[in-house]
């Protein structure tokens, strides 16, 4: 079984479009959406939810007004500015370290467990999918990503699947780090812009840091041919495989608007190029 993740560093380069297309192309696979704080893959795959679970993680401090003696010790030790001047908790700033609850001489502070999201196992027209929804403004997206990854892997093992195809998160922080663990190849989708290359370079740095091998797809490559050339040279200089180049193609947006993957949509040059990229990737992983 091979696990691949599609990441981008910068958002909006077409990561989910590529994931959806690979989901349509791969045989015998399990999908996982690890972009838990702005998940989009379900819009292409229309999962039918079979199992629904709460994601409990982290705690938030609660001050009992009756017991509080207004000594202010909690505010003095809190490093996250989560205790307001009137000695109430700013729930958004609280990181749940519990320092205040240990130090309160009146025993007025309790730590309450957060239900910070939900995760699901679903069926789609391409096979099973594990996905999640992080609650609004919640923390611990990294932990939720790890959970989705674990569930997807176990499901793939149970079903004897050949592939786990993971839609990664943008950025380089905890959710991305969590989506890289145990991955056979990270496919970095970028676009021919200075920002695209800058961000791809940073996320490739993260993948290398954790010893994960990478390949690059340049999406909308015809929008700036000289930048595309720069990215190609970057690949050569850094010994990173170029998996494919895909045209800017309005039919990709149309397919998305219709809730279809680019593969299921008639015609379009991008479709052929994505199929080509998938073949290159399969060879690379043989």
């Amino acid at each position: 079984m091979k696990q691949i993740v599609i990441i981008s560093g910068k958002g909006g380069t077409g990561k989910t479009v590529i994931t959806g297309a690979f989901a349509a192309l791969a045989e015998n696979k399990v999908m996982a959406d690890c972009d838990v704080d702005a998940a989009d893959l379900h819009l292409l795959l229309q999962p039918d939810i079979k199992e629904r679970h709460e994601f409990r993680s982290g705690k938030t401090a609660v001050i009992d007004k009756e017991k509080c003696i207004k000594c202010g010790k909690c505010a003095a030790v809190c490093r996250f500015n989560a205790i307001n001047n009137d000695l109430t908790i700013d729930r958004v700033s609280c990181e749940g370290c519990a320092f205040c609850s240990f130090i309160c001489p009146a025993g007025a502070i309790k730590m309450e467990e957060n239900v910070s999201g939900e995760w699901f196992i679903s069926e789609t027209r391409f096979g099973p999918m594990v996905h999640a929804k992080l609650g609004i403004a919640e923390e611990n997206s990294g932990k939720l990503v790890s959970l989705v990854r674990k569930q997807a892997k176990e499901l793939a093992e149970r079903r004897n699947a050949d592939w786990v195809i993971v839609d990664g998160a943008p950025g380089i922080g905890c959710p991305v780090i969590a989506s890289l663990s145990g991955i056979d190849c990270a496919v970095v989708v970028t676009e021919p812009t200075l920002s695209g290359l800058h961000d791809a370079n940073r996320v490739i740095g993260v993948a290398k840091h954790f010893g994960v091998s990478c390949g690059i797809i340049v999406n909308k490559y015809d929008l700036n041919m000289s930048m595309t050339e720069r990215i190609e040279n970057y690949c050569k200089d850094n010994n990173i495989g170029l998996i494919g180049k895909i045209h800017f193609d309005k039919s990709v947006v149309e397919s998305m608007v219709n809730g279809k993957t680019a593969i299921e949509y008639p015609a379009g040059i991008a479709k052929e190029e994505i199929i080509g990229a998938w073949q290159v990737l399969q060879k690379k992983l043989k």
Partner: protein
Amino acid sequence: MIISVASGKGGTGKTTIAVNMALSIDGGVQFLDCDAEEPNAHIFLKPVIKQSKKVFIPVPEIDEKKCTYCGRCRQVCAYNAIAVIKGTGGKRGSILVFSNLCHGCGSCSYFCPEGAIKEVNKEIGEVEIGSSTALTTSTVGFMQFIHGRLNIGEAMAPPVIRQIKKYINPTRTVIIDAPPGTSCPVVEAIKGSDFCVLVTEPTPFGLNDLVLAVEVLRKLAVPFGVVINRSDLGNKKTDEYCESENIPILMRLPFKKEIAMAYSKGEPIVKVFPEYRKDFRQLFDAIKEKKGSL
């Protein structure tokens, strides 16, 4: 006034809107790029960096000469960042700190009964301060530029964002380029803003993520409006949603190949096509008006 520019979904043109608005306002704005994981605004604003400061978080360091492996530190750490194994049968115990999991709360060093824990600084990123003259006209004036960068392999951007925001000068117009998404880094960047501009595109992905971003802003109680980028590529659903939710649409920017081209080369739109300045100024005026009417 502090205006943050955010978007649930990445790549909708958040940085484009923030940068071009900043370059269209008179009187010297302060620009804060708070996307510490993937900072991009510097590519367009080409700032001259005058000062650079490392960002540290305090993490525990154990003095094993004093440690009795009592396990109190492990007990108080909410993030499992310390592992302690008690010694048995005359064998020494052992203690391990996983500094990547540490939030720097200070609990362990406070509660260690042996005074065996000292906090030491661990570098997780840096903040750079400078000024940008990407577009100097007599009215735009001098722009102060601040951004931060999370080190590769580090997981937590919020401390870097907090450090960037320490430089906020409330007497100026402050523009914050926020990270994408809806979780902790975004919240850290947006909270305390007077107004937030949500940049979206009229596709199902864009709308799905816009709805999430709207929930974040409602939770934070920050007033907001929407900018629809590439407004001609997609469908009408975003307009319908904004109307039904009573959310003002502040600006629409159609897809143009020449705008995409300028973007790809790291050029601000208003530098290549100065005629767009009035559109971005209108955007700023619309924000001021919305803010004033609240």
